[in-house]
């Protein structure tokens, strides 16, 4: 009898407590703010009335039109690249992974990324992004010195240098107002657009490592070194590119469209950074 009232209280509390959670979804502390007023990109601590949705507005979004006028030719090139990746690049990548340990592969990948510094720095300057240009210089200096020639990404441990978006000439052209143009699939190179292919040519010229291919006054030894560097860079980057491609292909119901959408979405996201 002495326990009747406390026990009733307990039962009532449980019932009311659970009812509160199940029947009245509450907004997050860091989430929804005033309806229609909040700009994406800003976090909010405001608590508002519960807002739930059926998601109909998301499900009814139309599919974006894609600028792919040479789709038939692109399809053919895509199939060619697919065979090339599976029968030529993949064996090279597997062989490289078999011979070279993971830690060394990571370091070599970092080394070649560090060598692409002129591309990232030059494009930041061309876009007038001088803070990021400075960050790129900082990254290069830190990784080349403390990171022993770029083998280690020491800059990741420096908060101001940890997450600097990589720039290229395709993005520079995009920021200058050039639209992406038609989608293209290039043999060996893979998915691109007219703008990005132009950008690729610009970056190629901007990278001193490729100058042996552009200028004629290079000696035989310099050319041999140049070709070796290019071949090494290709081998070092092959496991990553093969894995990404195979994973996409395995998950896709239409690999051509999956790769096209992924490429265009990724580039659009890079342009927004």
């Amino acid at each position, binding site marked *: 009898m002495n326990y009747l009232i406390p026990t009733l209280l307990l039962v009532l509390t449980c019932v009311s407590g659970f009812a509160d959670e199940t029947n009245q979804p509450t907004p997050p502390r*860091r*989430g929804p703010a005033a309806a229609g007023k909040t700009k994406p990109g800003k976090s909010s601590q405001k608590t508002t009335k519960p807002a739930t949705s059926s*998601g109909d507005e998301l499900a009814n979004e*139309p599919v974006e039109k894609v600028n792919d006028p040479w789709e038939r030719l692109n399809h053919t090139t895509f199939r060619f690249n697919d065979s090339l990746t599976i029968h030529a690049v993949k064996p090279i990548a597997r062989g490289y992974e078999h011979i070279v340990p993971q830690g060394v592969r990571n370091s070599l990948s970092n080394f070649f990324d560090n060598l692409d510094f002129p591309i990232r720095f030059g494009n930041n300057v061309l876009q007038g992004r001088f803070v990021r240009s400075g960050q790129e210089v900082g990254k290069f200096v830190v990784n080349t010195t403390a990171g022993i020639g770029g083998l280690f990404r020491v800059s990741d441990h420096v908060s101001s240098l940890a997450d600097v978006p990589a720039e290229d000439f395709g993005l520079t052209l995009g920021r200058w107002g050039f639209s992406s143009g038609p989608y293209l699939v290039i043999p060996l190179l893979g998915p691109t657009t007219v703008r990005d292919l132009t950008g690729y040519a610009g970056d190629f010229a901007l990278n001193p490592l490729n100058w042996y291919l552009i200028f004629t006054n290079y000696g035989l030894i310099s050319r041999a070194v140049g070709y070796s560097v290019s071949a090494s860079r290709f081998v070092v980057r092959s496991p990553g590119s093969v894995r990404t491609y195979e994973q996409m292909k395995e998950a896709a119901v239409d690999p051509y469209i999956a790769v096209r959408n992924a490429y265009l979405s990724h580039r659009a996201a890079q342009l927004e950074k």
Partner: protein
Amino acid sequence: MTNSKPFKRDAISQYLNALIGEFGNRIYQYRRSLAVAVVNLSFVICRLSFAASPPDPASQLRSEIDQVLSIAYSGQSSETLADRVRPLLEKDFSFELVTRQAIGPGWRQFAAGDQQKVTDLFSRLVIRIYAARVVGTQKPTITYGKTVTLTPDRCEVPTRVTAPNSDKPYAVVYRLINLPSGWRIYDVLIEGVSFVANYRAQFDDLVRRGGAAAVIKTLEAKLAEPINPNS
């Protein structure tokens, strides 16, 4: 006059002693039931405080991801893993909404039975792919960014994932929606590529040309293909 003050003092003192004695006696008498009441009161306070603080989608997501990863990276085969992570992923994701988005506006033309069938097949495909990617024993490192509000009922949680065999992090953004059943993931963006938008682009032509039958046939064929874990 002089005797009245001590009398008054004694009377008050006696009254107070009696009152305290009686109160103390009652406390002693009902000590066990009072102890139960105190415990229950603390329970009430706890319940009220939980009810007052709404579930934060970011912390909810974090605990859900931790749960999935603890099962995922336990060194099991991808087939076993798919069965084990399925209940967790079905709780975290709204597969119905994910599938509806992946199919796009054509979804409304599907019969209810076909919608159910497509949802079932598509969720099986997604879970199967996920299980094939997380095979192994070494968990990736995940850092969580600030939650971004998209609309009053939607938000996104940016994360950076570093695989154990790599030192280059990549961006993964989880988009959550506040459905009547609670906060659920409705899309995942990897390096800016939306999972549902990618599938919507792939299904678009299929839906327009062959409707639900073509989608079901394609998904069944896809599920029949072998999958290479960690390829």
